[in-house]
């Protein structure tokens, strides 16, 4: 479904006299997001300062405030499968603009984690693949090993030729070390992963 279409079409379908009544709306959803993120999404009054300030709004399928709106309305599936939650890099520009001090980056973190746990379709699988490779690298070495992350990411996404030049230029400037920088007491790192309630990511 395209940007805005959902909000426009479904809201005409009132049957129970409430402010919003939508097919499949999930009223527990906003609460779940609040519990995870520590953010009360109802505080958002949609002034759109966040969306105006967001440096990546132009590439998102929904604007940041629309993501909050979908949470408020309980449109679980649409928000968890949208691309915007993956394009957010957590730069906090929006939070600095927000008059009610909503921690947008924390909301986006919560939504991504819920999308993974609840098996929703991931709109930006390459971005998730990248995050997974970073975390795999931390599991192996306790630190990130850029060359390995990039090679494994390429293996996952099969985009071998993209950025080949950039990689080679970085190699020639010795910016990509062949060997990882490592944590000695790696058992402590592995223990963190084992205790993970969600299992290994």
């Amino acid at each position, binding site marked *: 479904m395209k940007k805005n279409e959902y909000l426009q079409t479904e809201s005409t379908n009132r049957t129970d006299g409430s402010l919003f009544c939508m097919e499949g709306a999930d009223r527990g959803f906003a609460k779940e997001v609040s519990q995870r993120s520590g953010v009360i999404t109802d505080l958002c009054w949609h002034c759109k300062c966040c969306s105006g300030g967001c440096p990546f709004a132009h*590439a998102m399928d929904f604007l940041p405030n629309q993501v909050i709106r979908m949470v408020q309305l309980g449109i679980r599936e649409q928000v968890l499968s949208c691309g915007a939650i993956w394009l957010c*890099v957590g730069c906090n520009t929006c939070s600095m603009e927000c008059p009610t001090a909503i921690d947008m980056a924390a909301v986006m973190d919560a939504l991504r984690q819920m999308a993974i746990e609840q098996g929703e379709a991931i709109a930006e699988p390459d971005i998730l693949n990248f995050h*997974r490779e*970073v975390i795999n690298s931390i599991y192996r070495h306790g630190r990130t090993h850029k060359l390995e992350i990039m090679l494994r990411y390429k293996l996952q996404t099969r985009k071998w030729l993209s950025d080949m030049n950039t990689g080679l230029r970085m190699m020639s400037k010795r910016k990509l070390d062949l060997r990882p920088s490592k944590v000695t007491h790696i058992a402590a790192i592995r223990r963190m992963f084992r205790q*993970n309630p969600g299992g290994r990511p």
Partner: protein
Amino acid sequence: MNNLNTLQYSYFPGCSLATSAKESNRSLISFCRQQGVELTELRDWNCCGSSSAHSIDAHLAHHLPARNLALAPPDRPLLVACPSCYLRLKRTHMEIAEDSAAREEFQRMWGRRFDPDLEIVSFFEMLSMIVDQGRLKGLSGRLNGLRFAPYYGCMLMRPPKMRREHTFHGLMEKVLSQTGAEPVRWPHKARCCGTFLSVSRPLVAAKSVQTIMDGAARANAECIVTACAMCHLNLEIRSTRPGRIPVLYFSELLSLAGGIGQGEGWFRRHLIDPRPLLRRHHLIA
């Protein structure tokens, strides 16, 4: 502000400074040494989790920084070189400090008491203290006439929880002006570079980077100055148009201003070669 006046710090470089941004790491260490600041690298530190842990795994996003806090000796502040690692470490420290269950968990996991008084300091905070105390060395005018665009990126942003934390906006202008360099006025000093989108959505990051690079060049800057290894990398690899200008680390320029770093090979590691510019200003041979 306990411990801030002592000039002994534990040092957390972070993954980027330890590997791809060694020139940032080394210039920062050299500069600190010159200023009489002793850095002791945190023994066996681990990755703070970067953008990826908090993006997809709340458990790791909490415990990865926590282990580093547990490694920090109690008698000195912890200097975090990378602005992004700083945010993760500081935030985790705040979260544990205000939650008794998290403090108990910390003790159970790491076998030592959580230290609520541990000072976690960014490079900017440390430098600002040195400047305020009037003991900054190297204000010799070596950078005379160098026009730079101060670039902070998301360093100027804070999550609401950390709103009271100082961002040190303007510190690069203030300090480098004292060494003779001239900051230009430009509109993109706080625009995010795109961080990991540079890998998975390169065109999106490139658009941001190009805006930043064009903006700096239009403002007639000869170079962009940053303190962040992520910003540095993105600005270098995602700007492709002619007319792009070199990107220097704040600590590299501070070192040059103090007369050190000329022969260290830091500038050979840049993808946009800054050496012609530095030669023009007689900063390197």
